[in-house]
C-alpha cells in the first residue's frame, strides 16, 4: 500500500515545527512506500536475524510508518560480556523504511559505525531501537553524508539500564531535509552518556539534530555538545531536552549547542530545554550562535595564512573538539578528514 503523505509530520506538530517532512515528501521519492535493505558487517560473535515483528517498541509517527511499511525488523544480538575491537558497520541506509533492533547483553561492549548515505531524491526512514543491558557499553559513530536531494529521518530509541555507557558521535552534512533524532530512556542508575555531534551545511541543506533524554533514576551523567556550521542558504536545527524526573537525584547533565554562521543567509534554529523535577541536580545548558573571530582571522593572515585557509582552520578547530574523545583513532581521523574536505570545497 502506498504511504499516505498526510500521515507524515508537518510543522504544525510542535516537535517538527522546523522540519516539515510533509512539505518535501513527494510521491515520486524513491523508497517512499518500500522497505529498505540495510547491509550489516558483523564482528565475530554477533548474530543477526530478520523477523516480521509487529510489536511496537516505539511510538513516534515515523516509527509507526516504518512498522507498517517495512514490517520486518533486523535484530542484532550482542552476547553478554562481548568485547571485540571490530565494529558493527551498518550501511545501505539509502532508501525506504528500515527497522533495526540492537540488543547488548550484560556488560557487552560494542562499537557501531553507521553510514547514512542516501540515493538521490530518495526517502529514508530509519527506526532503530537499542537496548543496553546492565553495564553494557556502546560507542556509536553516525556519519550522515546524503546527496542534496535526499529526505531522511533517522530515529534512535535507546534504553539504558544500570551502569550502561553511551558514547555517541554524529557528523552530518544534511540533505534536502534530514533529521537525526536520539531518544534515551535512562532506566538504571549510574548511566553515563556522551551525545555529541556536529553539522556542516552548505547550499540549501537542512539537518535537524533532536534529542530527548528521559532520566528517571539517580546518579546519571549526561554530556551533550553539538556544534553547527552553516553557510549559503542552509538551515541547522537543534532541539535538545533533558527531562529529569523526581527520582533522578544527583543527575549531572550538561547540554551545549554552539553554531557558527558563515553567511547571513543561512539559518539556525535552536531549542535547548531542561525540565527538572528533582531538587538535587547539577544541570546546565548553553546555546550560542556566532561568527568567526575577526581578530583571530587577521592574526592568522598577518602570519601569511590566506584568508580562506585561515577560515577553514578556525572552523575546523571550532567543530573538531566534539570528536576529541572518540576511542577509535582511525575513525576519528576519517571524521576529521570529512570535515576538512567539506571546508576545502
Amino acid at each position, binding site marked *: 500500500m502506498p504511504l499516505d503523505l498526510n500521515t507524515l509530520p508537518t510543522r504544525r506538530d510542535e516537535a517538527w515545527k522546523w522540519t516539515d517532512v510533509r512539505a518535501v515528501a513527494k510521491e515520486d521519492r524513491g523508497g517512499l512506500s518500500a522497505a529498505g535493505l540495510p547491509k550489516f558487517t558483523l564482528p565475530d560473535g554477533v548474530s543477526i536475524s530478520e523477523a516480521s515483528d509487529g510489536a511496537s517498541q516505539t511510538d513516534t509517527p515515523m516509527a509507526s510508518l516504518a512498522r507498517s511499511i517495512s514490517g520486518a525488523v533486523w535484530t542484532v544480538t550482542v552476547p553478554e560480556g562481548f568485547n571485540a575491537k571490530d565494529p558493527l558497520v551498518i550501511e545501505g541506509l539509502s532508501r525506504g523504511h528500515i527497522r533495526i533492533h540492537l540488543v547488548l547483553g550484560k556488560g557487552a561492549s560494542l562499537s557501531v559505525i553507521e553510514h547514512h548515505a542516501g540515493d538521490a531524491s530518495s526517502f529514508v526512514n530509519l527506526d532503530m531501537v537499542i537496548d543496553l543491558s546492565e553495564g553494557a557499553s556502546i560507542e556509536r559513530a553516525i556519519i550522515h553524508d546524503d546527496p542534496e536531494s535526499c529526505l531522511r529521518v533517522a530515529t534512535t530509541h535507546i534504553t539504558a539500564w544500570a551502569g550502561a555507557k553511551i558514547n555517541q558521535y554524529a557528523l552530518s552534512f544534511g540533505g534536502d531535509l534530514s533529521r537525526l533524532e536520539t531518544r534515551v530512556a535512562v532506566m538504571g542508575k549510574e548511566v553515563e552518556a556522551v551525545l555529541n555531534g556536529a553539522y556542516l551545511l552548505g547550499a540549501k541543506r537542512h539537518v535537524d539534530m533532536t534529542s530527548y533524554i528521559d532520566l528517571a533514576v539517580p546518579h546519571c551523567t549526561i554530556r551533550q555538545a553539538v556544534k553547527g556550521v552553516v553557510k549559503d542558504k542552509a538551515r541547522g536545527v537543534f532541539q535538545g531536552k533533558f527531562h529529569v524526573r523526581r527520582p533522578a537525584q544527583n543527575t549531572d547533565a550538561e547540554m551545549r549547542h554552539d553554531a557558527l554562521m558563515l553567511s547571513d543567509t543561512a539559518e539556525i534554529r535552536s531549542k535547548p530545554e531542561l525540565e527538572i523535577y528533582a531538587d538535587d541536580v547539577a544541570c546546565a545548558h548553553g546555546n550560542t550562535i556566532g561568527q568567526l573571530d575577526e581578530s583571530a582571522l587577521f592574526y592568522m593572515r*598577518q602570519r601569511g595564512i590566506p584568508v580562506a585557509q585561515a577560515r577553514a*582552520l*578556525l572552523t575546523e578547530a*571550532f567543530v573538531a573538539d566534539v570528536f576529541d574523545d572518540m576511542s577509535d583513532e582511525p575513525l576519528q581521523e576519517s571524521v576529521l578528514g570529512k570535515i576538512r574536505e567539506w571546508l576545502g570545497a
Partner: protein
Amino acid sequence: MLKINNLSAAVDDGQKQILSGLSLEVPAGEVHAIMGPNGAGKSTLSYVLTGRDGYEVTGGDVSLNGKDLLEMDPEERAAAGVFLSFQYPLEIPGVPTMTFLKTALNAQRKARGEEEMKAPEFLKKSRALAAELKMKPEMLKRPLNVGFSGGEKKRMEIFQMMMLEPNFIVMDETDSGLDVDALRIVADGVNKLRSPERGMLIITHYQRLLDYIVPDAVHVLAGGKIAASGDADFAKKLEAEGYDAYAA
C-alpha cells in the same frame, strides 16, 4: 626599505582620524623606535602597515622595497616579509602552535614561489629555537597562546618571528609584560635578526627595551604624525621629560 609618505588613517568607519600626514623612512639595516603617549596611534600605525580591516587609509602611501604595501592583502604583506609582533597576541583555540606556524611558514613560502619546509627540518628548527628562547616544549603543542601568560605570549611572538625570518619587523610594545630575564632573551633574539637586509620598527612606551636593542633613530608619534626625531639618547630624554612638549 620602508617608506611611509604623508600617511593618514581613520578608524570607526572613517569617523575618527588617527594618523594625519605621517612620514617616516626606515632604511634597510636600521632599527627605528617609535615612542609616544597612550592613544597617540602607535598600534594604529602597526595595523595600517599590516592591512587590518577597519583601519582605513585616507591618504598617502607606504612602500616596502619599492612595492606598494597598501595595495596588498594582509597575507600578501606577510609573504612580502612584513611581520607584526602584536601588542595583544590573539589566542587561537583548537589550533596547535606547531600546526599554525607550519601552515603560516609554508603558505608564505608558497606565495613566494619557494619550496615547502618539510616536517623534519621544521621540527628541528623549532626545537632549537624554543630552547634558545627558553620556552617549555609543551608550549608548542598547546593551542596557540591559549592559557599563556602575557609574558609567554610575547615570547611566542618572538618565536614566530624567528621561525618566519621576516625582512621587515614591527614590534608593538613587545616589552610590556616581560620581566628583565625575558626581556634580555627577547632582545638577544631580536639583535640576532639585525642584518643589512632587514629593517625594524620598535614601538615602545618605555626606554628600557632600548637599552637592550639600541636603535638607529628614535621618533615621537604625537598629533597623528612624527613630531620629533633623534638618536638613541633621545629616548632617555623622552622618558625623563614626557611627551607634553609634543602634544597635538
